[in-house]
């Protein structure tokens, strides 16, 4: 499976001899990290160069798996689905999280209650949430279609239509994730000095100017951070799909990780799945590096 990437803010490297005691303290953690993360990751890369499977004796195939991936139309569909899901979840989640944070940062009455309500979905178990949303999306007895019928509108096959299923999953993911974005944005807002807002008001800035000229740019680092977190997370979406659509209908919700899971544990093509995993890892690594670069540029 894919690796979790680190987004810690890198500091200037210092010489080893200067910091030998720091490394000594880090050793136990590094050993655990090596055994649980780096070793399996390395093993995955090695596996991706083989045709390891239960079906035949293992051969070293070099880059055959990767060459096959490039022309695999099913994999390409999964990449497209994953990209759609990632963009579809990440952008609205950040936008809604930012709006909620700005609204609930002020002196609004009941803001603590709203903060709690918006954050609750984050705390629910994914599987429980998925089951509840399957009921919400239920075509005949679900509340959404119930409401639509009452309003005289046609009911929709939310999870049963190849055109709608992915979007339905995206809506649920936004519901679950925007509380996280809100909390992180709220923390970011606390770091903007009150004086700056007051100076802007005195300079004649209206609410809209303050939001776009002061708040948004001053939160740019928080935004980059959130973007990395959300991209890395949504790239690896699996649980909700496994429970709610099983990749269907017609492969319309098949994402990279879901296909990887099917390839490995459905068809026992471990080598091929390992190649997918490596590609996914490299993509995540790339996004993390870009995001961290952007954050560091924002800091200086």
């Amino acid at each position, binding site marked *: 499976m894919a690796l979790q990437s680190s987004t810690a803010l890198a500091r200037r490297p210092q010489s080893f001899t200067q910091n030998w005691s720091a490394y000594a303290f880090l050793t136990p953690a590094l050993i655990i990290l090596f055994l649980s993360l780096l070793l399996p990751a390395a093993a995955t890369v090695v596996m991706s160069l083989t045709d390891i499977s239960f079906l035949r004796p293992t051969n070293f195939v070099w880059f055959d798996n990767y060459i096959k991936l490039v022309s695999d139309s099913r994999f390409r569909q999964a990449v497209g689905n994953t990209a759609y899901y990632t963009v579809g979840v990440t952008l609205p989640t950040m936008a809604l999280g930012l709006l909620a944070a700005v609204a609930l940062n002020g002196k609004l009455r009941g803001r603590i209650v709203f903060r709690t309500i918006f954050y609750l979905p984050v705390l629910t178990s994914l599987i429980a949430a998925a089951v509840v949303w399957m009921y919400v999306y239920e075509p005949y007895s679900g509340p959404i279609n119930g409401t639509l019928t009452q309003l005289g509108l046609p009911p929709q096959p939310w999870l049963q239509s190849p055109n709608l299923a992915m979007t339905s999953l995206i809506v649920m993911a936004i519901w679950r994730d925007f509380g996280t974005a809100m909390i992180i944005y709220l923390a970011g807002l606390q770091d903007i000095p009150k004086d700056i807002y007051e100076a802007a008001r005195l*300079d004649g800035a209206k609410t809209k100017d303050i939001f776009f000229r002061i708040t948004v740019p001053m939160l740019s680092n928080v935004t980059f951070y959130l973007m990395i977190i959300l991209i890395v997370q949504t790239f690896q979406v699996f649980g909700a799909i496994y429970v709610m659509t099983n990749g269907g209908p017609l492969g319309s919700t098949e994402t990279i990780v879901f296909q990887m899971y099917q390839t490995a544990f459905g068809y026992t093509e471990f080598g091929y799945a390992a190649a997918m995993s490596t590609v996914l890892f490299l993509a995540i690594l790339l996004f993390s590096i870009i995001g961290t670069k952007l954050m560091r540029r924002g800091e200086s």
Partner: protein
Amino acid sequence: MAELQLQNVSKTYGTFEAVKDVSLAIEDGEFAVFVGPSGCGKSTLLRLIAGLDPVSAGTVAIGDKDMTARQAGERPVAMVFQSYALYPHMSVFENIAFPLQMEKRSKADIREQVAKAAATVQLTTRLQDKPNKLSGGQRQRVAIARAIVRKPEIFLMDEPLSNLDAALRMEMRSELTQLHKRLGSTMVYVTHDQLEAMTMADRIVVLNAGKVEQVGKPMDLYHRPANLFVAGFIGSPPMNFLSAKVVGLEGGNVLLEVPEVGRLALPGDASGFTVGGDATIGIRPEAITTTAPGEPALTLSIAPRTVERLGLHTIVYGEQGGRTLTALFNGDPAIAADAPLGVHVPLKQIHLFDAAGQARGHRD
């Protein structure tokens, strides 16, 4: 007509009264300084003028127009914050341009105005830098330039020099005075530092616990403080206070018994006193001399405990009758610690306060 007029302005936070019934008129072009100890309500009063906080009672008028109901940004004022409150993500140019952009001025106009303001504060070479690349003094100048481009009727400044080191503060003090002369606009300047108030102000407003204690020209406050608070706050080192008993009132004189000093007759307004009641006399450290003056004077013997020689003058902390008196002498006189020292205070230089702390001396 006054440029800024405050009438019965109050501000309460919950049950706490931060500003109590302040009425003030500040003239067009005046450099007014609000001075007072930390927490006395200076910043609060400034924020009420700016419209950053609404008044709890009273009215704020600027140039004849009632501004009480107007929001911040709709009043013809610009403010320089103690923290400078620069926009950290914007360059110096963008910081100064911001108020003009909010007014939807044309790009060419903005460039011209910014260039002019930057030249006024000598920042022309730093326009492309972000604020975090600038020194404290330069950030201060950006904040001032950002205020200048608004062409406000009133500049409001909240302790603008308090984050600078001593040398830079002195430099900026005279620069701000010059700037005021050049712009000719009204300034309301807040500080807790009486030295800044004395050196920069046309007129000083002394605040204490949310109330105005006295308003006046620096030298009026120095020579004729209205009460004990102002007497103790203005002047450095601060005035010496000696408590006394009133033993008689006759012919425009107040006859006092000062413990460990003796009897003293001072010209004063008898209405504040009753025979047998309390009084306080005040002696500025610089009013004390070692040579007898050619006029009626009070003579004391003090035991110097600490002698601080600053070159220009010498400060002596001496013991007299169980209390500490501070004396300030010009130059570097030969005064030895712990050798008794005879000193004189001209009676005309002694301040007289009644039991309520109001000045009652006849001084000119």
